[in-house]
C-alpha cells in the first residue's frame, strides 16, 4: 500500500537518526544556553513569520483565486518564485532590497539585516509562498455559491471573506499555515545570508545545527531532534484540534 510506503519513507530516516543519537550527551547540550536561546528564537521567529505570512498571504491568495485581472497567471507564477530560488540567493535578493544600500533599505532608515526582525523577514519571504499556494488551492476548490448567498444577505466583500470564505477553507488555511511555520522553522540559507548568525539575536536552530555539524556532528543531530520534538509536539497539540474544528464533512 503506497500510503504506508510513503509514511515509511518519511519516518525511517528519523528512526535512523534516533538510533545514531548519542543520548548521553543530551544533558550537557541542553544545559548550553546557546541551544535553548536558539530554540526559543526559532519558535518565536517562525511564529511571527507565519503571522506575517497569514496577514499578507491570505489576502494575496484570495486575490489570485477570486479576482480576475490581467496577468493573473504571471502573478500566480511570480508568487512561487521564492520556492524555487535557492535560499542563499533569496537572502542576497533581500539584502539588495532591504539592505543598507538596498532599493528600499537605503531611504527606509531602519536596518533589518543582523536583527531578529530580519530573521522574521527572511523566514517569511521563503515560507509565505507555501501558505499562498495552499490557501489558493483551497479557495479554488470551494463552492462559490455560498459566497453568493452571503452577498445577497448584504455582506460586504470583506465580511464574506472573513465569515464565509475563510471558515469554509479552514482546513486549507491550517494546512498552509502548518507548511509555512514548518518551513520557517527549518529555514537556513536566507536567514544566515540576510540576518547573519549571532547567538541570541539571529542564530536560529538550523544555524546552530549547521555550525554544530562543522565541529560536532553528533551534537548537530541531537539539536535537530530537539527541534523536531518541539515542533511535532506543537503540531500534535494544535493542529489536530484546528483541523477537527475547521473541517467540514
Amino acid at each position, binding site marked *: 500500500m503506497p500510503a504506508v510506503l510513503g509514511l515509511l519513507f518519511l519516518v525511517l530516516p528519523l528512526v535512523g537518526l534516533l538510533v545514531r543519537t548519542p543520548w548521553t550527551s543530551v544533558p550537557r547540550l541542553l544545559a548550553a544556553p546557546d541551544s535553548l536561546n536558539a530554540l526559543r528564537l526559532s519558535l518565536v521567529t517562525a511564529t511571527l513569520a507565519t503571522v506575517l505570512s497569514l496577514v499578507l498571504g491570505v489576502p494575496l491568495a484570495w486575490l489570485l483565486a477570486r479576482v480576475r485581472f490581467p496577468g493573473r497567471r504571471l502573478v500566480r507564477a511570480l508568487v512561487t518564485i521564492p520556492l524555487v530560488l535557492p535560499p542563499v540567493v533569496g537572502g542576497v535578493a533581500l539584502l539588495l532590497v532591504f539592505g543598507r544600500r538596498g532599493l528600499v533599505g537605503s531611504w527606509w532608515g531602519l536596518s533589518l539585516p543582523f536583527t531578529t526582525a530580519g530573521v522574521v523577514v527572511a523566514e517569511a519571504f521563503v515560507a509565505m509562498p507555501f501558505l499562498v499556494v495552499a490557501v489558493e488551492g483551497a479557495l479554488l476548490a470551494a463552492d462559490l*455559491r*455560498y459566497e*453568493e*448567498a*452571503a*452577498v*445577497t*444577505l*448584504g*455582506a*460586504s*466583500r470583506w*465580511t*464574506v471573506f472573513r*465569515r*464565509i470564505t475563510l*471558515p*469554509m477553507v*479552514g482546513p486549507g488555511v491550517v494546512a498552509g499555515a502548518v507548511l509555512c511555520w514548518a518551513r520557517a522553522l527549518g529555514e537556513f540559507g536566507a536567514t544566515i545570508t540576510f540576518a547573519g548568525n549571532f547567538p541570541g539575536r539571529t542564530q536560529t536552530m538550523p544555524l546552530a545545527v549547521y555550525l554544530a555539524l562543522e565541529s560536532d556532528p553528533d551534537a548537530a543531530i541531537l539539536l535537530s531532534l530537539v527541534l523536531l520534538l518541539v515542533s511535532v509536539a506543537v503540531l500534535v497539540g494544535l493542529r489536530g484540534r484546528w483541523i477537527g474544528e475547521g473541517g*467540514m*464533512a
Partner: protein
Amino acid sequence: MSLRARVVVERPRFRLDAALEVADGEVVALLGPNGAGKTTALRALAGLTQNRGSVVLDGEVLDRVPPERRRVGVVFQDYLLFPHLSVVDNVAFGPRCRGTGRAAARREAMEWLERTGLAEYADVKPRSLSGGQAQRVALARALAVHPRLLLLDEPLAALDAGTRLEIRARLRQHLAGFEAATVLVTHDALDAMVLADRIVVLERGAIVQEGTPAEITRRPRTDYVARLVGLNLYRGRAADGVVELAAGGRLSVDAPVTGEVFVAFPPSAVALYAQRPEGSPRNVWRGTVMGVERQGDRVRVELSGAPPVVADVTPAAVAELELLAGQPVWAAVKATETHAYPAQV
C-alpha cells in the same frame, strides 16, 4: 411601481429575455417548466448573474449596484445554508451584515426561528437538519434582512403537507403585511394561487402569459399552463359556435367567438359512457383509455382521441365502466361547460 426590470441573460443553449413589473407589496409568482429560466431570472434580479437588461427598484437603477447593497432577500433552490454556522447564526448573518449588534441579531434570529417552528434547532449545524427543516431556515434567513425585494426559489418544495399549509399561510400573512415586492418561483399551482397576486409564466426564456390567478386559471394560453391549472386546453378556429381543433376533432362552444381561439374546460366537465350517449351534450366523441390514476377522492382518466382529453370521474364510475387502459369509451362535454376565448390577446 416597486420593481421594473428587464432580465436578459445569454447562455450557451439558452436565452432569457423577460420584462417583470412588481408593485410595492405585490407578490408575483413565476411559473414555468424545468429549465425555463426562472432561477436564472432571480439570479439576474439579485445581481448574481450579469444582466444585459436593467433592474429598477423603487425608482433606483440597480444595474451598477453590487448585490450586497441591493437589499434583496433570496431563498435559493438548494438553500445554501452556511455549513460552518449554526442555524441561528445563519439567520442572524443578514442582520449582522446590516449592522445589528451580535446579541440583537441573535435575538431577532431566534424570533424568526420560533415563527418557523425551528427554535429547538437553533444551535445545530445545518448538515444535521432534514431537507424541509433546511428550507425553513433558508426562508427565515432571507426574511430576516427585511428586504426591499424578496426572491423565493421554490421556497416550499421540500416541506411536508402539514408544514406546507402552515408555512404557506404564514408566508402569505407575512407577504401581505410586507411593503416589499416579492417574486416567487414555484412549480405548485396551489402555492401560486394562494400566495400570488399575479402570475407570470415563463417558457423557454420568454414570458408566455401573465395575469391574476383567476385569469390564468380561466384562460390558460399554453399546454403547460393548462396542465398546471388542471384544464383541458385546445387551440382552433371558431366559426358559428363550432371550433375546428388543431389537435383534431371539433367542439361546440357557448360563446360568440370567431377566428383563432382557445377552448378550455375542466376534467370534471367530461362525462364518460360505455355506449354512445343520447342526450343534451352536443360534444360527444370516441376515445381510448390511456391511463387511470386515483387522486384523493376522484379518479383521473386520460383518453386518446380527437381531441385527446382528461376526465375526472368517481371511483364508482370507474368500477361500473370497467375503465382499464386500452378500453374504448365515449366522452361527452356540454357546450355550456366549455370556455372559449380569443387566442390573440
